[in-house]
């Protein structure tokens, strides 16, 4: 299993591509800035959103029960899933009961987290992702690399090749307009022939039992309104207390995500249409554990806008796949260790702790503080990098003894002067992507001793 550093190194081999990836995401970040600066009370909105989510987390038990009661009253079937497996089994059992073997899906990071597609395929159920970006990565047999822009790592020529192979577009066609039209025709047929649709949930309202799904493409609506069975999967933290609170979140969400004032569609599902079955699956999968971690519970406020990824200097230059988890970037790096501390021990270290993520977060999650705190937990629990621990011990020994320190400094300067190959090689991580500096002739201590008079 490769860690973030190794995966980032592979991504960094193609320097031009890294620059392109970096600039594209920074452009999205700039659009977010322009959109947010047009709202005079943007900071007050962020604070309100953060506080509303705080209230939700502090009373989540009651809100869940209230939401369930309202949703059932609205004619929706409510399911509870403790973990990914239970969630996947529930989806499978609903489909099985209807004898359905094909399902269309709109974007749901939760189902990525649960590896639903893989599970259903093993059960002989065909799943088609209908968000264009998700369809592209699905055809490429890759996970999404970004929660809002799933194929941001792919060039249009590569997408052209994928569409040529799978959807029969002209060989060499890479015009986004034509490729999108190809997907439109293909997916329209899919929407019309699927009896079951699964969507994610952006917000669920405890007061009314309704849920809101936001898309630009209209794919969630196409799937849901043409289906006999609509399944909506949501993490238990997606609740908000009242309908009026949607105003705060819908003002923040898309401006933070892409710089649009709102998504094209913000659909409010309250009751199934006559003859339709509607299901909601409430999924815990580690969230109640994270809720109990005082230092990390704020991560559950996340509304999945992706702003922290677009601004992150590490994400932009290492790509989403280097995080080897469903939700990449800074927010993913504070969510993943809760699920599996050992497997994701590297992620809180994949950051410069510059704090830009915290500054753009629309619900004011203290992301970089949590990254720093996770590092401490991970090292304390014994999941830290062993080489780094040894190096730190050697460093502590050197720095605690003036004599050892002087000898080490002199030795270092001599090696760099007379045997530069000893440090200018691939074994030294600092030599990768940069040249080692010229060694100074003497240490500051030596210079000071000579010049102080």
């Amino acid at each position: 299993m490769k860690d973030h550093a190794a995966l980032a190194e592979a991504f960094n081999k193609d320097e031009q591509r890294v620059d392109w990836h970096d600039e594209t995401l920074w452009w999205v970040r700039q659009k977010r800035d322009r959109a947010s600066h047009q709202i005079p009370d943007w900071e007050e909105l962020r604070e309100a959103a953060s506080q509303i989510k705080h209230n939700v987390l502090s009373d989540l038990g009651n809100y869940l029960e209230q939401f369930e009661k309202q949703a059932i009253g609205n004619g929706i079937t409510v399911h509870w899933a403790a973990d990914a497996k239970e969630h996947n089994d529930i989806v499978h059992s609903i489909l099985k009961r209807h004898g359905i073997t094909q399902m269309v899906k709109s974007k749901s990071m939760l189902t990525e987290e649960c590896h639903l597609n893989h599970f259903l395929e093993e059960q002989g159920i065909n799943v088609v992702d209908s968000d264009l970006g998700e369809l592209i990565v699905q055809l490429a047999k890759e996970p999404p690399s970004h929660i809002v822009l799933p194929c941001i790592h792919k060039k249009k020529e590569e997408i052209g090749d994928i569409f040529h192979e799978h959807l029969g577009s002209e060989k060499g066609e890479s015009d986004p307009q034509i490729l999108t039209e190809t997907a439109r025709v293909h997916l329209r047929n899919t929407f019309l022939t699927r009896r079951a649709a699964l969507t994610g949930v952006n917000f669920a309202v405890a007061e009314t039992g309704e849920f809101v799904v936001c898309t630009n493409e209209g794919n969630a609506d196409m799937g849901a309104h043409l289906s006999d069975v609509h399944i909506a999967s949501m993490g238990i933290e997606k609740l908000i207390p009242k309908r009026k609170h949607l105003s705060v979140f819908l003002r923040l969400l898309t401006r933070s995500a892409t710089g649009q004032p709102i998504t094209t569609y913000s659909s409010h599902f309250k009751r199934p249409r006559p003859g339709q079955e509607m299901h909601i699956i409430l999924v815990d999968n580690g969230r109640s554990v994270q809720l109990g971690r005082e230092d990390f519970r704020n991560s559950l406020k996340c509304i999945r806008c992706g702003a922290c990824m677009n601004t992150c200097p590490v994400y932009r230059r290492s790509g989403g796949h280097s995080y080897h988890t469903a939700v990449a970037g800074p927010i993913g790096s504070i969510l993943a260790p809760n699920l599996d501390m050992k497997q994701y021990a590297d992620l809180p270290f994949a950051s410069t702790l510059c704090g830009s993520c915290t500054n753009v977060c629309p619900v004011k999650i203290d992301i970089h503080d949590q990254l720093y705190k996770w590092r401490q937990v991970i090292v304390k629990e014994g999941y830290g990098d062993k080489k780094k621990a040894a190096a730190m011990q050697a460093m502590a020994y050197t720095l605690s003894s003036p004599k050892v320190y002087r000898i080490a400094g002199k030795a270092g300067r001599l090696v760099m002067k007379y045997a530069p190959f000893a440090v200018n090689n691939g074994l030294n991580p600092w030599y990768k992507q940069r040249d080692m500096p010229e060694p100074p002739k003497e240490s500051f201590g030596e210079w000071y001793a000579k010049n102080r008079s």
Partner: protein
Amino acid sequence: MTTREKILADVRKSQPPLVAAPDITLWENRQQVDGLTVLETFKAVAGNVGSKVISVESIADIKTHLNIIPGSRVLTSIPQLFDVATDAALAAGATPHELENVELAILQAEFGIAENSALWVTEKQMGTRVLPFICQHLALVVNAGDIVADMHAAYKRTQGSDHSFATFIAGPSKTADIEQSLVLGAHGPRSLSIFVLTT
């Protein structure tokens, strides 16, 4: 213990001490800027997200702006427009799949929002939920006096109403998933025309 009981017990064990939700009435009760500014903002934002805004003085005026290809299927919920095409009258509760070939749908929006140009369309106005998504082109009609300033005013306006399904629509269906190049007409309508009734 059922999964439900377990999750609720785990949540209650983990949740922090109760904190009240913030008061957002300040936004809800904010004085609306004058109608003219709101309308101008609405038009400007709508243009930015790819909608076409057309001011009309009457419903009948809308007809002069429609460019309907003979034989194409048009559906509308607005009685004064039933004569724009054969069988244009929208029947409630149609089979969704049967709407696959709709070229143009003309629907009434309850109100619009200046800050993001979104229009509130409810199931009652759609007849069949899938209609505003499955049609090739969509036209929404809104009264100039029904444009509110922001989302807070919007939700305040929906208070007390009860819809099995309703949606905010802001612009045509779109995607920028291929190298961030904006393409209109992803899965839903390729265009959105907004007729603003000024009288």
